[in-house]
Structures are given as C-alpha cells and as structure tokens.
C-alpha cells in the first residue's frame, strides 16, 4: 500500500506527459465497446491491450489487473 500511495502522491509528470497519458487512457479504456470487433484476433488483442493498459493508462488499471491475478 505504501508503494501505491507513493506512486499516486509523489509522482510528478510534465503536463504534456499527463495529457498524453490521459488521451491514451480515454482511447484505450473507454468508448463504445462492440465485443468481437477487435483487430487481428480477439485473444491476441486482449493480451496486447492488457499490456498497453498497464504501461500507459493508469495505476488503477494496473491494480485491477494485479487484483485479478491474485484471485486466480
């Protein structure tokens, strides 16, 4: 938990970086989903999307992925 607090409170980004991250977060994590539509193949893209989310979207997404892994 301490690490999480430190990430949220202590990390400072340049405004441009925050703007980029927010844009990517909106594009990757939000918007109308029409399941089964995704490029290449569903399974591959799911994996790629999880990777991108963890990398660029948000701590909350990373925590959610980690929480799900712990439950499995």
């Amino acid at each position, binding site marked *: *938990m301490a690490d*999480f*607090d430190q990430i*949220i*409170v202590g990390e400072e980004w340049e405004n441009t970086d*925050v*703007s*980029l991250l*927010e*844009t*990517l977060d*909106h*594009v*990757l*994590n*939000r*918007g*109308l*989903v*029409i*399941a*089964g*539509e*995704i*490029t*290449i193949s*569903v399974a591959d*893209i799911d994996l*790629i*999307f999880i990777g*991108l989310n963890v990398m*660029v979207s*948000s*701590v*909350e997404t990373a*925590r959610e992925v980690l929480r799900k892994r712990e439950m499995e």
Partner: protein
Amino acid sequence: MKLYAYCLCANLDTFDKAVTGVSGAAVRVLKVDDFSVLVSDCESIPPTQENALAHAAVIRSVFEKTTPIPFRFGTKATEQQLRTYIASHKAALGNKLSQLSGCVEMDLKIIWRRQTANAPPSKETTGGPGTAFLRKKQRELHGDQQATAERDELSSLLRDELGSLINDESMSLRPSETVVLARVFHLVEKSKVQQYREKIDVLLRNRPELQGSVSGPWPPYSFANIELEFKPYFGVS
C-alpha cells in the same frame, strides 16, 4: 474489406481531409440511416501509440463540430456488420446521442486523505484453511462495504457542490490505508464547463483533505457505452 470505426454521430456529411486516421489512412463518413459513422478502409491496425493518438485526433475533430459517440480504439467491422448493428440498435443509439448532445466529459481526479485510518478486520493466523478462507471473505466484504460508503459520501459531496451542473456521473475508487484515489467522470453541458471548473476550485479550497485536478473537456468516452451485445452480429460465440 473491413472498416476501422472511430465514432458515430448524427448528421455529419463531411470530414476534415487534413486529419488522417490510423496508419495514415483517409477518414470518410459512412451514412447509415440517420447516423454518420467515421471510418477508414483498413485491414490491419497495429496497436501503437501513434495509431491510438490518430484515433483520438479523429474523434476530437468531430467533437469540435458535434457530439460523437466514440468507439474504443481497435474497433473494426465490415460495412454490413456496422449497418446491421446500427439498424438493430437504432433507438438505443438515438437515445444515447440525445443524452450526450451538447455535453462534454470532465475528468476529475481526487486524492482524498482519510482523517482516520480505516482499520480492516484483524488478520489472525490461527485456524485451518477453512477459517482462513472465511476470514478472507470477511475482509473482502468489509472492503466492499467501505468502498460503497466512500463512493456514496464522495458522490454526495460532489453533488452538493456541483448540483445541476452534472448531467451524469461515473466514479471509480481505489482506496489504500491512508488515501482514497477517486476518478470521477462528469457529463457537463459545454456552456457550463467554466462554472464547473470554478465550483471544483471552490470545493478543493474548502476541503483541505481533498486534492485534485480536472482535465477536459473530453469527448464523452466514459458515457458512450450503451451496454449492447454485439456478438450475434460478429459471429463470435
């Protein structure tokens, strides 16, 4: 030939040719019933940062003229699939566009420092696997109840402050032992964005336990889903 879909909106006839789509593809307007879908002719779209930003740029360009329902990055379908989907969900899509019309999304991030630490139930180590399982469930239940209470408290606080400025709200909380991180999306009329920002400033000044920042206006990404099932139209079992 598959189409890459960016967003759906009402009655848009043309698109700015200066804005290119994913993988540098041209963007065109596909008219389906009363709707306009912004699409590119593309078979394969690498999920790169450049393409994600191109997706965002197309939606942003439409957003400057009218209110779009953004598709999530990576949405591809044949023209027939899109036509079938829209024809089958015409009413729901029309209602969604009406709800979003003239509105923008504001992205509010709040760090809420708890006044007192919320102690979870004690983590006793005695007992067998069954006891440990029940204790784990107890902790999860405690966490769920606490999250619900925090969500209600923060939502109430925001509604007290923002009142009728909010048309809709979507909130997610990530609590830790000392702070709660809240991500709140508000649907706000375009004409009220400045008022919204001022109210948030006042709220943050008056509540020292809250730190936050607002970004926007965004296209209404977080209010786009109409929870429709698309699988039957795409042959995915």
